[in-house]
């Protein structure tokens, strides 16, 4: 029987799932993903967690608990950085250790160490991740290359204008309606940490809600890396958190570009990097009168109706702005 590897549907699942899945299936393992987040999964995690932390971290605990008795290995890499010259938030580096400390009876954790800050992805960490399934380094490397190819295609699909969540669905073989068929009249950019924005539980399904309000959604994954770097060039110190950089870079890019009517910044309460970066985005948005801006701070106590009301108001405001602009234009025309 194939070895079963569990991947919790949380955190970097929303960024790397296609890569991880292809890699492990290529090596002959069976990949099991936890169910989409529910209230119950969240409660399970909350019971175990010690101290207070952000919502996404609490969710991982729940996902890990539900996976624990279904798999032989849990894949929770020790991620210090996933990109050159940047870090992830400190929680990621300590996560496997914290999980093991709090829940000693978990299945073995594959805590491959990734630190690509200086050298890039090393052959050693790839081998480390794959050695339980196949001892042959060449086959492991080939599996990695295949995974990379699939991952690149996945990223390209996102650039075409679908959200990462939908791209993952498409990767799993589900039907995703093409972008062009939708009736969308507003353009709204949605930025924030991927694991907060794309988890329907933690973001209270904000993407579907915006779609219902006839908005087309733009995310930070849809713009190329160079544009993001371009966006944050004005800052005196380079942002050293990967997702922080993407969020602020994308926000700055969208605020400057003319294609966007509104910008929404989603933050989970107690998120360290975002608590500082919000101030920077707020500042820039305040000086930009053309784009409507709203930041939503979300945690497990956020009520759905509250969010609905705020979104309705936000969209209504954008529509009204458009109307008044049109009227002004007509006046000037006369």
């Amino acid at each position, binding site marked *: 029987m194939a070895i079963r590897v569990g991947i919790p549907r949380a955190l970097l699942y929303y960024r790397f799932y296609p890569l991880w899945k292809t890699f492990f299936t290529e090596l002959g393992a069976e990949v099991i993903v936890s169910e989409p987040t529910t209230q119950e999964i969240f409660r399970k995690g909350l019971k175990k967690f010690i101290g207070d932390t952000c919502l996404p971290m609490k969710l991982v605990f729940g996902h890990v608990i539900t996976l624990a008795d279904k798999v032989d290995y849990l894949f929770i890499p*020790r991620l210090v950085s996933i990109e050159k010259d940047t870090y992830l938030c*400190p929680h990621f*580096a*300590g996560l496997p250790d914290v999980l093991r*400390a709090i829940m000693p009876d978990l299945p073995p954790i594959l805590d491959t160490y990734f630190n690509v800050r200086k050298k890039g992805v090393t052959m050693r960490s790839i081998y480390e991740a794959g050695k339980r399934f196949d001892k042959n380094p060449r086959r492991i490397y080939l599996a990695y290359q295949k995974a990379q190819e699939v991952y690149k295609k996945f990223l390209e699909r996102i650039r075409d204008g679908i959200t990462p969540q939908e791209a993952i669905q498409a990767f799993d073989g589900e039907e995703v309606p093409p972008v062009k068929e939708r009736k969308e009249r507003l353009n709204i950019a949605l930025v924030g940490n991927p694991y907060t924005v794309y988890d329907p539980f933690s973001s209270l399904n904000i993407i579907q809600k915006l779609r219902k309000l006839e908005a087309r959604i733009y995310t930070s994954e849809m713009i190329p890396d160079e544009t993001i770097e371009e966006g944050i060039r004005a800052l005196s110190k380079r942002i*050293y958190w990967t997702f922080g950089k993407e969020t602020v870079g994308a926000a700055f890019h969208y605020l400057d570009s003319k294609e966007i009517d509104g910008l929404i910044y989603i933050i989970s309460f107690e998120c360290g990097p975002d*608590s500082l970066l919000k101030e920077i985005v707020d500042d820039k948005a305040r000086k930009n009168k053309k784009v409507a801006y709203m930041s939503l701070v979300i945690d497990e106590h956020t009520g759905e109706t509250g969010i609905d009301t705020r979104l309705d108001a936000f969209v209504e405001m954008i529509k009204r702005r458009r109307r008044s602009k049109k009227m002004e234009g007509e006046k000037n025309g006369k």
Partner: protein
Amino acid sequence: MKPTFPHMGTIGVLGEAILRRFGREVILPPKTSKRTLTLGSRYSPEFACLPLKVTLGNLIEALERGADTIVMLAAGGPCRFGYYATLQNLILKNLDYEYELITLDYDMLNNLRKLKRLAQGQNWFQIGEAFRFGFLKLLTLEKMERSAHRIRPYEIKKGSTTKAYDEASRIIRRTFSFRELRWAKREAISLLKKIPQDKTRNPLKVGVVGETYTVLEPYVNLEVERKLGEMGCEVHRPVWATEYMISMLPIFSRWGPRRKYRKAAQPYLKEEPGGECIVSIGGTILYAKRGFDGIVHIAPFTCLPEIVAQGILSKVRKDLGIPILTLVLDEHTAQAGLITRLEAFVDLLQRKQARQKMKGKQG
């Protein structure tokens, strides 16, 4: 140019000494107070960590006093500290303050250039001497603090150690040359020696670990160490300003004073998540092995590295059987609540000690 920098426990002494030897008129922010905290939290992002709010308050008060240059450290991530300078700069500029910002970070060559500018044309030897003096002064001060922690549980009159230490630190802070410092040291030591002590007591041993800023800054941690001392505990801590400064230098990042903590924490935490996480865990383990009675772990609310530490410390507590009290501090932490928690904790430790003694007698 009138430079200033935010307070951080005793580290201010180092900065002041160096800049004074450079011939600068240093404007220190007034002692951290209620007003500092209010000002800081009014203008900071609402759920930023506490040190950011307090240091912002410090800077505003210093600018009000006429400072025109801010000197800040800005190490690189993943802890939020590395981004303080940038963010505070943004906030202060939006408040229309006029000043120049000098940040010292990992780019050593650039740092030296900035130092040369601050030093008003002094040569490298003089700059080196300024640093040597600053470090010596800070070390002397820390030595006094260490002995104050040791003496406090034995004092006969409550508060006499704190009084003597305050006097001693005032004497040391006044000095700005090597010779003055030598004299001041002697005077300070004799002051501490004069405290009447009752050596028959058998105090509890408590380790205070946690995030550097909150451990070092007495106003922010509501003087936890003094309170513990006066409740009859001998306080030890792994976090000291000098060690912190040394471990900030890239050459010492691997071999510096943190090495022993890293080694001790190895079975629990394989990779360093930044901040003082590794020191909190390693320090707790080392103290537990030395037979300490309890550990107080201090962290500011939402501190990223310390939340990781808190999770892992729960396992350490089970494995090594040492009681740990975690205090999460923010601007709303109140004296009375903290005292009650500390008293309960010390009470628990005392009972445990008494029980062990009984067992020993019976055995």
